[in-house]
């Protein structure tokens, strides 16, 4: 269980997170939706230790991880697929995957996981020696997800994995998210595509300008009038 309490982040004068709290129970899919600039990426980045938090706490299985170095957080089983497909364009698929396993030391286990990722994304296997920068947007997103899985995560955090993808790829990404979750990985999903995200999620949180304004069961939020008006583009 990942439990965030009163997390607060400032960027210079901008108060990006105003003390938010959310729970990510083990084995579930939790989604965080909200408009542009609401603070979704900031939330994930500060859990990861990429952004320095001004206050609050992030408890992971009862241990405070706020302020730990990113490598320790990755080692403890939390990993982020960053926003905007941040793959390593001049490195091969294999090298990208190896970097996903950067914090791990057991080579045999890493190779077994590489095969597992190839099983999930056969296209990566076909082109494992190709430079990642030559991939299409959707393929790069798959590589980014595969790379995150190489760290053997217990919690997989994804920042807008469907951004800029064609509908076919969006469907594939959400299928993959379900599969990964079915294999026992907890998922914290940030999405612009609120409808698809709330459909797959057990719990949803809705963010606005640095605070959480609603939360609840994914299906309930989908039919909530306020949410429908503001985030699902329905009158």
């Amino acid at each position: 269980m990942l439990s965030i309490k009163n997390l607060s982040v400032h960027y210079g004068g901008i108060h990006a997170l105003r003390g938010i709290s959310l729970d990510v129970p083990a084995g579930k899919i939790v989604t965080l939706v909200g408009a542009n600039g609401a603070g979704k990426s900031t939330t994930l980045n500060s859990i990861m230790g990429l952004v320095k938090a001004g206050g609050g706490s992030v408890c992971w299985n009862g241990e405070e991880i706020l302020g730990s170095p990113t490598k320790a957080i990755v080692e403890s089983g939390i990993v982020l697929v960053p926003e905007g497909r941040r793959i390593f364009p001049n490195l091969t698929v294999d090298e990208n995957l190896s970097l996903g396993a950067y914090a791990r030391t057991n080579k045999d286990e890493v190779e077994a996981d590489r095969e597992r990722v190839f099983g999930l994304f056969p296209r990566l296997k076909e082109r494992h020696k190709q430079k990642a920068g030559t991939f299409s947007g959707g393929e790069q997103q798959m590589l980014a997800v595969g790379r995150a899985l190489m760290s053997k995560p217990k919690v997989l955090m994804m920042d807008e994995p469907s951004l800029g993808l064609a509908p076919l790829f969006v469907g594939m990404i959400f299928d993959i998210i379900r599969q990964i979750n079915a294999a026992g990985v907890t998922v914290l999903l940030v999405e612009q595509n609120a409808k698809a995200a709330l459909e797959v999620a057990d719990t949803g949180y809705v963010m606005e300008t640095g605070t959480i304004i609603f939360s609840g069961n994914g299906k309930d939020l989908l039919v909530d009038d306020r949410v429908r008006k503001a985030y699902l583009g329905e009158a």
Partner: protein
Amino acid sequence: MNTLQKKPMSRDAMLTLGAAVIGLVLLFVFDSTFDRFTMQIFKLCAINIILALSLNLINGFTGLFSLGHAGFMAVGAYTCALLAMTPDQKATNFVLQPIAPWLLDLHLPFLPALLVSGLIAGFIGWFLGVVALRLRDDYLAIATLGFSEIIRVVLTNTQSITNGSLGLKGIPRYTTMWWAWGSAVVITLFLVLLIKSSYGRAFKSIRDNEIAAESMGVDVFGMKVLSFTISSFLAGIAGGLLAHYLTTIDPKQFIFLKTFDILLIVVLGGVGSITGSIVAAIVVTISMEALRFLDGPLNLGFMVTNGVPGLRMVFFSALLMVVVIFRQQGLMGTSEFSWDSLSRIGLLPKRGPKSGKGGE
């Protein structure tokens, strides 16, 4: 199937061994047949290989635009010369002001002196890295450029340690063919292993995407400092070899333009390619000598020009511009030499393993 998979492995090993033997024989033959002048150029090739590789490690593989190489070379050159010269040799140099007494009697054989030069340059690199690597791209370039000029000013003004602008003369000619090429080969092997290791992957991931590297758990700042320190260490070694190759050094040799000479090699060869740096270092070093006639009076058929000193550099600058415009990735891009690439272009099967091209 199994034998098929194993075959290229043993073939590559044989080819590499063959190339190493041929290289060794060639070195021996060259050493005993070529005149002194040709040998000097040949040695300079090896030193330039080390310089290009070390600059490529930081600029090409880690993606940090650093322009401080001349400074690290200078540190290495002075350290090595002052340690390896005998007290007598040192004393005759310091005519304006006597050498500091602690330094006069400090004397080491060549190898330890060379290693100490690398260590001191590496230590300064580490320190500069910790301070300057927090800066972003262009600021880092300016800071390292400034650092290399500061080193030069310090060398000019510490009369009792470096003999100031008079420089050091009569440095023993320890940099033989074997020292120069031996160091180049050892350093190349070291860098090949480093780049293939998880450290090398971390360097390249920082170059490609710092934020993604950080979220994978790469200690971005620590890795930058490590890469910068190793690069400075190697530049220090190259500086030491250079001092005992030239036998005369003074601060003016280490102006920032020296860094640009090395940068030229790195860019021509391919930013992020070890093979490219090696090939370009050899080609550029030899052409610098071969094109020396450009600096002298030229007979153009219809007229004879007066000597234009620096025309060679105009040629190389033009070449650099052509590369930057038409082939930004340089000779090799980020690719590396492999025996497979030779057979792919049809060179290998016809020739057989024994006549494979020498070199790395």
